[in-house]
C-alpha cells in the first residue's frame, strides 16, 4: 500500500507527500486535505523534497506537486525527478497541479503516463475526488 518512499512503519493515516512552494496556496490546500483525513507531509521546495527523501524513508501513498512560475512540464519533471531520487518503484501516484489554464479545463484531469496525473482544479473538489480515487480511504 505504501509503495513510494519505502517505510518500515505504516503511517496512521493515508499520507500525501506535498511539494508546494506557494506561500499563499499552502495553507488552504493543507487545511482541506487534513480535514479530509489525510496526513500531509510538506516540502516547501523541490530541492528540500529531494534532500528529505534521500536522507530518510517517508511514508507516502501519493505525491502532490504544486510549484509556482513553472510550466506543467517543469512541474511534472520535478515530480518525476523526486520519484527517481527516492528510488521509487513506480506505482505510487504522482499528481501535479497545472499553473495556467482557462475555464474550459477547470475541473479536469489527464493521466499523462501510468500513475502520473495533471490536474486543473476548478472548484478544487475535483482535485480531492481524484486524490481519494488514487489513495486508500482516509479517516
Amino acid at each position: 500500500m505504501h509503495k513510494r518512499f519505502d517505510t518500515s512503519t505504516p503511517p496512521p493515516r493515508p499520507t500525501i507527500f506535498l511539494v508546494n512552494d506557494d506561500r499563499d496556496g499552502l495553507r488552504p490546500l493543507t487545511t482541506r486535505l487534513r480535514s479530509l483525513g489525510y496526513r500531509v507531509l510538506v516540502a516547501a521546495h523541490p530541492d528540500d523534497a529531494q534532500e528529505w527523501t534521500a536522507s530518510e524513508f517517508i511514508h507516502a501513498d501519493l505525491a502532490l506537486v504544486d510549484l509556482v512560475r513553472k510550466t506543467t512540464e517543469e512541474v511534472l519533471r520535478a515530480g518525476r525527478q523526486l520519484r527517481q531520487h527516492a528510488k521509487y518503484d513506480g506505482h505510487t501516484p504522482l499528481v501535479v497541479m497545472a499553473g495556467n489554464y482557462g475555464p474550459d479545463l477547470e475541473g479536469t484531469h489527464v493521466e499523462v503516463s501510468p500513475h502520473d496525473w495533471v490536474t486543473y482544479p476548478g472548484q478544487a473538489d475535483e482535485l480531492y475526488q481524484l486524490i481519494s480515487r488514487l489513495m486508500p480511504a482516509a479517516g
Partner: protein
Amino acid sequence: MPENLLLAALPREERSRLGPFLEPVEVKLQQLIFAPNEPITHVYFPFDFVTSTVHEMRGGESVEVGLMGVEGLVGIPVWLRQRTTPTRAIVLVPGRGLRMPAALFLREVVHKASPLNDLAAAYAHAFLVMTAQVAACNRLHSMDQRLCRWFLLVYHRVRSTEFVMTQDFMAQMLGVHRPTVSTTASLLQQAGLISYNRGRVTVTNHEGLKAGACECLQLMEAQFDKIFDGSWRELAGREDRKL
C-alpha cells in the same frame, strides 16, 4: 437618474454645467480603459461597472493594486495632470457609467474652480490609501482573508450577489498562482460563503465573508466613506432605488 456618487454629490448647477461634456458608456468584461504608458483618453465615472488598476512586471506577472467603482472615477492620473501612467486599468465587472474626454476634463474641471476637484482630491487620497493597504495586505494576510476582502470589495461595487469572474482572471488580479484561487475559493465555498461555478461567483453569505476578511476591508471602505461623510454603500443603494 441614478448615477456615480462623485457626480451625484455635486451641486445641481455644477452637475448641469458638466452634463454636456459627459457621455453614457457601457463597458465590457476585461475591456482596457487605459494601458501602461499610453495616453489616457477619457475619465470614467462608473455606475455599476468595476475596474481594476493593475501593475505589471516585466515577466508578464501582474497584481491588482486597487478597485474603482461607483464611489470614484477612473483616471486619477488625468486629475493629477499626467497624460500617462505605468499601470493598467481594466474592466473587472462590466456595466454602465459616464465618461468625459481627458482634454475636456482638464479644461472644464481641473483648470476651473469646479467642486468636482475637491471630491476628486478626496477620492485620490482614499485610492492612495487603498493601494498602500493592498500592498500591506498582500504581504501580511492569509489568502483566505484576502479573498474574502476582495470578494466584498467587488460585491459592494457591483451591488449584486452574482457576478461573472473566472478564477483565471482572479488569479491574475490577485497576483497569485492559479490553483491557489481554486483551493482557497473551495474553502470559502465549503464554509457556505460563496459559490463558484465555471466563471460565475455568487455571494451566499455576506456577513460570513465580512467575518472572514482581514481588517483591510474596513480600513479601505472607511476612506471612501470620508469623501461622502457617510457610508458610500448606503448612498449607492439610494442611487439604485432611483432605477
